[in-house]
């Protein structure tokens, strides 16, 4: 298999529809735009104040003091984009005007609970905009590696402090695509490089076999 992160990003990209407004978290989600299918153009919203974020600028055209992304790095805006203040940005986010947010997780569980902002006593980076994003976006996709070096991240019940309750719709990893539905976590697709047994063993939450279970295609 190619690099797991690119594989995940490619599969996530197939979830996006032409014209969707999308907010991307840090890490794997930032790889997604490179893999959008032909004919699919999305509008990237950046919570620091952009609708229509563009690609990374070349060093000589970067405006590090005036146009940056949510990580503080130089960014660009596409023609037709808009710069907005933080209350407008989060009105878009909280108000249901973002079609999809894609972000990583420390833990996610079968009830769609998400933990991705704090490891008490160890790492306290803060939630930033994550709590608002997962509460407000129409669709929440968790894009992450299936385990943390073998330790399950998809749990029966999150143990870390939550980012939000029951907010996750879809989990996409290098092993599988899982959908949170009433009753639990449904295995929709599996990567044929792994056996179902291997996927179950890497997942603490119970996986319900979807009747239309199929191979992951990227």
């Amino acid at each position: 298999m190619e690099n797991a992160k690119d594989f995940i990003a490619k599969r996530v990209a197939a979830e996006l529809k032409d014209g969707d407004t999308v907010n991307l978290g840090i890490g794997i989600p930032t790889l997604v735009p490179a893999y959008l299918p032909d004919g699919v153009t999305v509008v990237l919203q950046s919570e620091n104040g952009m609708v229509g974020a563009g690609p990374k600028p070349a060093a000589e055209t970067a405006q590090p003091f005036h146009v940056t992304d949510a990580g503080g790095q130089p960014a660009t805006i596409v023609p037709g984009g808009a710069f907005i203040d933080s209350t407008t940005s989060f009105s878009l986010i909280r108000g249901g005007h973002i079609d999809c947010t894609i972000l990583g997780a420390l833990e996610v569980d079968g009830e769609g609970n998400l933990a991705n902002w704090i490891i008490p006593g160890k790492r306290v980076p803060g939630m930033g905009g994550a709590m608002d994003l997962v509460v407000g976006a129409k669709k929440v996709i968790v894009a992450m590696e299936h385990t943390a070096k073998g330790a399950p991240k998809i749990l029966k019940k999150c143990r870390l402090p939550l980012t939000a309750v029951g907010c996750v719709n879809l989990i996409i990893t290098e092993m599988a695509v899982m959908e949170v539905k009433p009753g639990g976590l449904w295995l929709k697709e599996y990567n044929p490089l792994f056996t179902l047994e291997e996927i179950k063993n890497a997942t603490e939450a119970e996986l319900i076999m979807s009747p239309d279970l199929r191979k992951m295609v990227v």
Partner: protein
Amino acid sequence: MAEFVTPAEAARLITEGASLMVGGFMGCGTGHRVIAELARLGTGGLTLICNDASKPGGPDGSDFYGVAKLIHNRQVKKLIASHVGLNPEVAQLMNEGAIEVTLIPQGSMAEMIRAGGAGLGGVLTPTGLGTIVEDAAHVHSVVEVDGRKYLLERSLRADFAVICGYYVDKAGNVWYKGTTRNFNPVMAMAADVVIAETEHVVEIGAIEPENVVTQGILVNYVAFDGGAL
């Protein structure tokens, strides 16, 4: 009418132990000249209200970018922010017990500041429901309205705000460039004394009335040193 001062004069207005809002997002849109002067003065015991703790190593070549200077100098007693993860000194100072940090979801923080400046007693938001945010001091209670639950977040104000425009006209009207806008317009409404740093001072009328973002009536001082970043 806004009074025009130098960044050093502006920094001297900010008093020991004051609460201070600083606009900017990872330093983009921060009034860097006023903050650098405040760091030079060493005014301490501050309650800093800023989206984040910025970071070491700024694009201006500084060792500590924007509000990271104040944190590095231990001038900040209490920090209210949504994210501090890119400034490792915050975790270090927290472990030493040298700084108190309150983390607020970014959208809630923006609305709490907006409410503080808009004469509102608080904000109802679904963000943070069912999380440890529910127990934070900035949350008044969980409120049910028409069958839906919300956190009632308190409003937030400060003694001083340092905002940063690209153009400020001689009436104190502010226009922001690019993504520098972020928290600046709401903070300009939510502090007793508002200092607007600017990269350029322009004549009245140069910013068309339709394009004024922060109105000059909100600005007490314009801090300008004659040079662009």
